[in-house]
C-alpha cells in the first residue's frame, strides 16, 4: 500500500491511498485503503491521513477518521491522535501504520511493525526518507 498527505500554500489538506490488497486474497476482499474514514481521510479543520496495514482492523477502528476526531473533539495534537488511533487498531489485532499531517504542517508517522517505508518534505524542500524503526 502507498499513500500521501499534503498541505498546500492555500492551507488545503488532501489525502490519498492506493493498494494492491493482500497476497492470496479471495472472494472480492477489500481492505481499508479505498474506505473513506478507515484508510483515508482529510479535513482542513484537523488533518489528512493515509493508513497502511491489516485492513479489516483498520476498518473496524475507523483509524483515519479517528485521528481527525481526536484532534477535533479532544484537542489532541496530531502525533498523539495518530498514536492513539493506531493503538485502537492494534488492540483489535491490527498491525500497520499511518501518516498524518495537520493544518499547521505538523505531522506524525507512527507504525507498530518492524518498519514502514516513509518520507517527508517541508517548505524548505529538504526531503527525508526512513524505512526501519
Amino acid at each position, binding site marked *: *500500500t*502507498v*499513500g*500521501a*498527505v*499534503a*498541505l*498546500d*500554500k*492555500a492551507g*488545503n*489538506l*488532501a*489525502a*490519498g*491511498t*492506493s*493498494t*494492491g*490488497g493482500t*497476497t*492470496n*486474497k*479471495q*472472494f472480492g*476482499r*477489500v481492505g481499508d*485503503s*479505498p*474506505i*473513506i474514514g478507515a*484508510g*483515508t481521510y*482529510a479535513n*482542513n479543520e484537523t488533518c489528512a491521513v493515509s493508513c*497502511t496495514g491489516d485492513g479489516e482492523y483498520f476498518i473496524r477502528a475507523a483509524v483515519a477518521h479517528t485521528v481527525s476526531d481526536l484532534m477535533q473533539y479532544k484537542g489532541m495534537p496530531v502525533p498523539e491522535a495518530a498514536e492513539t488511533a493506531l493503538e485502537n487498531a492494534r488492540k483489535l*489485532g*491490527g*498491525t*500497520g501504520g499511518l*501518516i*498524518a*499531517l495537520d493544518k499547521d*504542517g505538523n*505531522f506524525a508517522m507512527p507504525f507498530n*511493525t*518492524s*518498519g*514502514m*517505508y*516513509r*518520507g*517527508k*518534505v*517541508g*517548505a524548505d524542500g529538504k*526531503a527525508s*526518507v526512513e*524505512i*526501519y524503526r
Partner: protein
Amino acid sequence: MKFGMVIHGGAGTIERSTMTPEKEQAYRTALEQSLKAGYAILERGGSSLDAVEAAIHVLEDNPLFNAGKGAVFTHEGTNELDSSIMDGKTLAAGAVAGVKHIRNPISVARMVMEKSPHVMLTGEGAEAFAKEMGVTLVDAKYFYTEERWQELQKEKKSTAPKSDQDRHG
C-alpha cells in the same frame, strides 16, 4: 508559508538483515522521487490534491510497492487494485475498488470524486466509468511481476496454520 507532504510505501516486516544495499537504495530513491513530484507542485503553488496524486503516481508506477505496477496477486492469480482520495477543503471524496485494468487507480478515484455524484465505484463499473472519462485501460499483464507471482505461489504452498489475522479473505 507552511506547506509540505508526507508519504508512505507500506508497513510490515522490514528488517535490515533481509534487505540488500541495492534494494534499500532503490526504495529510498523511489520514495525521494515521490516526494519530489509532490513538492514540485506544492512549491509552485499547486493544490494538495495535485501533489497527492502526483506523489502516488510515482509509487504506483514502481514495482517495488504494492500498488499499481507492483500489486500483489489474488488467490486466482489476478491483480485487484483499490484507491481513494479526499479533499480536506470540501470533504469531497472518491474511491475505486477491485479494478484490474487501471494503471493509476488514484487518478480514477479522483475522477469519481470530481466527475461523478458518487464516492466509490467498484470492479467493472469503475472501469466502465474510467473509460467514459477517457482513461486507457491496460492489459492485466501490465501488473505482472515475477517477485509478486512467486510470493503467491509460496503462500499457496504454505501449510502453516492460519491465524485469525491471516484469514483476511
